[in-house]
């Protein structure tokens, strides 16, 4: 139990946290910034993973698969927004929960009809398939480091866009007060459609990128759904930085819980969320 072991476990925690941020990034946009509770977030993540599986089989390369997958998720996101979500902006959270609850049922069944029930794997691209030896028996997969880098880039760019660009400002204005933003000439109809489809695409891309280190199987969406909400809520609604810190915090709590307090490991994450919300009722960095 020397310090090297502790260091590697901390690295594991941070890496898992970054992966959680990637997975929850789409939700940070749709739920965090736009304030729409989207339970179908897990389904879009699953669809992204299955798209990566199919396109990788067709093209043999993960990156071309992702390039093919992004337009599909953009269209899917835009379609879902135009048909369903458009009615929900003025409705309270309960209706959003229920409509997206219905979407989960539909997407799960469609997935089964299209791809069937077998668990699938997506091969790691050769260029990233190596691993760096850290100790005589353990080495760190390069692909996970690649994933962590992608997460950092994504987090930075999201924060940049939301914080420092005109589009970002309009999005935040729309989320803060939709009616006021509209009266100031922000075309919320098209902006919401764009933000939602980008959010769906982020969830899909997360699924595509995580596919090589996860398993692509029916119902994989539900596994990450609850933890994605925990990430956004702990971080604080409307804060990209909050979601990032929330994700890394959960990653660490999960790993340390697993290693040092195994019995309460599964409860630890929810305990963290409850504690954070009771200490700061609108999340770490949320606007009160």
């Amino acid at each position: 139990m020397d310090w090297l072991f502790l260091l590697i476990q901390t690295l594991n925690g941070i890496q898992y946290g970054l992966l959680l941020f990637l997975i929850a990034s789409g939700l940070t946009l749709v739920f965090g910034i736009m304030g729409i509770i989207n339970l179908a977030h897990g389904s879009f993540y699953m669809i992204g993973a299955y798209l990566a599986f199919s396109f990788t089989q067709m093209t043999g390369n993960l990156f071309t698969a992702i390039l093919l997958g992004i337009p599909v998720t953009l269209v899917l996101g835009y379609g879902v927004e135009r048909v369903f979500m458009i009615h929900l902006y003025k409705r309270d959270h309960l209706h959003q929960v229920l409509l997206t609850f219905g979407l989960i049922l539909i997407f799960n069944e469609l997935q089964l009809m299209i791809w069937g029930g077998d668990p699938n794997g997506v091969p790691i691209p050769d260029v990233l398939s190596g691993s760096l030896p850290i100790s005589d028996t353990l080495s760190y997969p390069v692909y996970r480091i690649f994933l962590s880098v992608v997460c950092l880039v994504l987090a930075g760019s999201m924060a940049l866009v939301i914080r420092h660009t005109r589009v970002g400002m309009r999005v935040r204005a729309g989320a803060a007060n939709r009616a006021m933003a509209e009266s100031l000439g922000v075309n919320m109809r098209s902006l919401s459609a764009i933000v939602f489809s980008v959010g769906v695409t982020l969830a899909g891309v997360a699924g595509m990128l995580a596919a090589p280190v996860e398993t692509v199987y029916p119902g994989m969406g539900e596994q990450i759904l609850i933890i994605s909400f925990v990430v956004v809520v702990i971080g604080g609604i409307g804060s990209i930085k909050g979601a990032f810190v929330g994700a890394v915090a959960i990653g660490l709590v999960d790993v340390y819980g697993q290693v040092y307090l195994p019995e309460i490991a599964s409860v630890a994450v929810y305990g963290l969320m409850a504690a954070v919300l009771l200490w700061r009722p609108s999340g770490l960095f949320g606007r009160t």
Partner: protein
Amino acid sequence: MKTKFDNISRRRTLGMLGVGVVAAATALPARFAIGGKAKVRIGTLLPYSGTYTRLGQSITNAMELAFAQAGGKLGGRAIELIKIDSEAKPPKAADLTNKLIGREKVDFIVGPVHSGVAMGMAKIAREEGTMMIVPNAGANQVTGPFCAPNIFRTSFSNWQPGHPMGKVLLDEGKKNVVLCYWAYGAGKQSAQGFKDGFVPHGGNVIKEIGIPFPKVEFQSALTEIASIKPDAVYVFFAGGGAVKFVKDWAAAGLKGKIELVGPGFLTEGVTKAQGAAAEGIRTTLHYADTLDYPANVTFRAAYRKAYGKGADVYGVQGFDAGQLIRAGLEAVGGDTGAKADMIKAMEGASIDSPRGKWTMSSAHNPVQNFYLREVKNGVNEVVKLAMENLSDPAKGCTM
């Protein structure tokens, strides 16, 4: 001042609800099961949606294959199959079992895959006395504390598959082992089965790493294993978890440095998704694709011809469920009323199964061979017979 509107609205409301009542009444089916030569009604409660869909399909396909091989008649009666999706959701188990028994009036219920659903089903089956054949769920309790004359299992008890691996490791002088498993029902029972075959014979379990089900984040466990450097690691994961653990094990560079073993579910039917990471992994299970029994050869050929893909252990268990029902019905000439004789016949049956001949223990759980297997280019090949005619201890069964 009563407006006209009030009168109409009341009459319309009452009318609407009246219609509702009549509709509900007529919808009640009044089907009667005519004894004797009517069709044998067999209900399946298996997952046709969600994570375990493929297992549900494999079991159903193979069972229908067994019925087809019996010429579509069991004890002279044609078969009607009623399939219900269990969704692997325990809260619905009892309700759906009631539907099969109460509404569909089935003679046999076959299922489930998920142990939680099995507990719900068994509770109703014990109360109603309906014949229940468990083609997969391995919860020890089903043929343990909750064993019953009308409940049979054609798969395994969670205790069994991991048990022979203890002896295999000890024979190779591997004494210091770490256990890593999903810390839920099946995982704990499988770990216990392994320990019962390992510790009493001098094996030493250095550490047990329990991972909450269904989490699939294994990096921290792999790091711990790497620092402990045991002779071997016994794991229990299935389906998506098995694919991910094996791939993460290879990605963490542990492959080839520390031996990875487990019950057959670690590689059964998932080697394609695991790819090269699965090569060389040894597991123990009551079945292997390359068993050279004649029954296995004909079964695999028939299954591929009928369904266009290779059979797996879940198919074998479904096939044997079909054979067990056939044995019971043929002994009583199709008269499902003669339950005692049917049960006696099924208890005494010797099933000529693709996994090799096996008989029923007193607690109605298979007494069967367990084979050591190794993954060679994607196929679980038989290495040797690890343990012959292993029977579940059936702790708590007073039958």
